[in-house]
């Protein structure tokens, strides 16, 4: 791995962000944190798209990233709406008490 930045660097970074985001989804109890980790993952995906778009000189990657952002926004809105409903129901935002589907 050279010092000069190549697409590989971007891939590694994107992968790292992705891993951290997945870890956050899996490990954190606070739901808001989980939602933020989801955003993180989506961002890593965007980064990956842009990197390859640059590599291949293809604009399609960037356009796809637009859609990703759109979807992320919508999903964040709805997710937060759910969180609010859950909060109203349970007076808490910790996920270990929201195990309705247990068993």
């Amino acid at each position, binding site marked *: 791995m050279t010092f000069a930045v190549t697409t590989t660097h971007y891939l590694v970074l994107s992968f790292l962000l992705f891993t951290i985001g*997945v870890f956050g*989804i*899996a*490990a*954190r*109890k606070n739901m808001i944190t*989980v939602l933020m980790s989801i955003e993180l993952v989506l961002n890593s995906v965007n980064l990956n798209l842009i990197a390859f778009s640059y590599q291949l000189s293809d604009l399609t990657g960037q356009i796809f990233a637009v859609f990703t952002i759109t979807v992320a926004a919508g999903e964040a809105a709805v997710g937060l709406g759910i969180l609010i409903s859950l909060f109203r129901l349970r007076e808490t935002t910790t*996920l*270990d008490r*929201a*195990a*309705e*589907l*247990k*068993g």
Partner: protein
Amino acid sequence: MRELLWVIPVLPFLGALLNGFVLRHRVGKRTVAWIACGVVGLAAVLGLLVIADFLGSPEHAANKPFEQDLYAWVPAGPLATVHDGVKSFTVDMGFLLDPLSAVMLFVVTFVGFWIHVYSVGYMAHEEGFQRFFTYLNLFMGAMLLLVLGNNYLVMFVGWEGVGLCSYLLIGFYYKEEFPPYAGRKAFITNRVGDFGFVLGLFALVATFGSLKYTEIFPRIAANPSVLTGPGHFGLTLAGFIAVCLFIGAMGKSAQIPLYVWLPDAMAGPTPVSALIHAATMVTAGVYMVVRSNVIYQLAPSIGMFVAVIGALTAIFAATIGLAQNDIKKVLAYSTVSQLGYMFLAAGLGAYGAAIFHLMTHAFFKALLFLGSGSVIHAMGGEQDMRKMGGLKKHLPATYRTFVIGSMAIAGVPGLAGFFSKDEILHAAAAGGHWTLYTIGLITALLTAFYMFRAVNLTFHGEFRGTHEQEHHLHESPPSMTVPLWVLAVGAVGAGFVGLPVEKWNVFHHFLQPVVYTVAGHTTEGHEASIVFNVILIVVAVAIALVGIGLAMRLYGGARGLAADEAWERRLPAVRLLFANKYYVDELYDATVIRGTWGLARALFRFDAGFIDGVLVHGARNLTLISSMISGFFDKYVVDGLVNLIATILDAFSRLFRRLQTGYVGNYALVLAAGMFALVAIYMLLNRG
């Protein structure tokens, strides 16, 4: 007309069907009587018409029988060996009318009819009236099958049928103890004889591939060598068959050693004794021997055996009859004795004489039995002659007919018995068998003697019974006395068809076609001189008169039982021997009966002990054990397996249930892990 031959045996069966099943317990005694007597009467009339038609028929003119096959009854299939072109063994249901069966037909239906009429009066107050007539009709049907059948198997069906009816009728008063026993005794003793009979049938089938008379007898007559070859037990084939068939006759016709059932058969109602055990069934054996005469002609040693047995039986039974006190027992032993005469004749080849005596005996013995029934009826059921006496005042018609019958059997000239008995003695004498002749002569003496002893003790002298019995004495109603007179006429007149002079002997000529002329053999009919014949007749008459005279002397008038008492004092051993039937029954009981019971018990013990005990219980235990093992196996292994699987599944599900934590985080983690795994696999696979 003669095609209606088959209707004759059917009629009585029809009567039995009606009275026994269709109309059982539904009609009154009048209807029962009309049906029962009606069918027999019709059969009798039809029989006469058929015979008349036959006599004018071309078959008779050619000395051939009229045969009628109704249908193939037993199409048994191909034979192993072919006999004269006969390839398969078939037994037809067929009837045959020839002079012999005509005579039998006449005797059976005529005498049978009058006995049926008599029974209406005799059984009027008995319970089981309808049952009685059902059995009686059934018997008539079977007897007619026997005499009209055209092959040995139909005859055998009738043979067994009359045996069955005999059992049913002897044991008619089944609520008492003795009659059923007597019925069983009759049937079982008969069965012993039937064993031999059936062996004879087997031998016939093996030799000829057929049981039909017209297929067997002409073949033998034309070619006697077919039977002269060796048979079994050192006899020729003819001898073997003859002796086997005769063993059956011994049982059915009560000859030594199988006669023991007949005296005990007197437990049945008197009309039964008259019909079955005097006139018809017991004569079946004689009929059978005469029918098979061609076989007996080829086995003269067996013929001699038959004659000897007949003669011995005749004298043996006559001696027993001397010391009997029961009027029916006297007549029973008399029957055995007279049957002996018939076999004596048949054995010597005097077939015509045998049948002649059969016919005359049917008349006078039936008459005597019915007369005794009338006496018993008047005496309120009493059969012991020691309690009778002087009944001629009270029972005139019975008395007169009884005397006529006694004279007939004694051989008083002019009456039927004289002619027939004389012919038999003549056959013995003319053939040079002087021992047999002497035995027959002595028996004739004894016959006359014991019959008139009976007459005297019953009808003459003073009444020896109780006062109630005396008050009860009355002559029987016409339904009973009319048959007595009819039979008396027969007892008188039946003899005239068989006059001792050859050219006037209508009966003899009539029966001639029945006796086969076997190639190379001479038949009966030893011509003797007139003087010889006359001497014989004179001797016979003398003997008869001596016998009667002695009896009158000893028992007549007011002497009553004095002679018997004197005998008991002077020769008690002899009297006891005669009175107790030579202890033959006791001998049989000690040996055969006990032996059979012992065997039966031993076998039972074996069955109960070993078969049931060891085998069955063993099987039971084995089954129990195996089912226990099976049960264990099922419970522990099979169920265990099932439970094991369930437990494994449960464990797995418990394990996997942990996945459903409900935590989103967990789900996300697993999602990621799965995705990672898939991608990793893909990448690894596509490294190249």
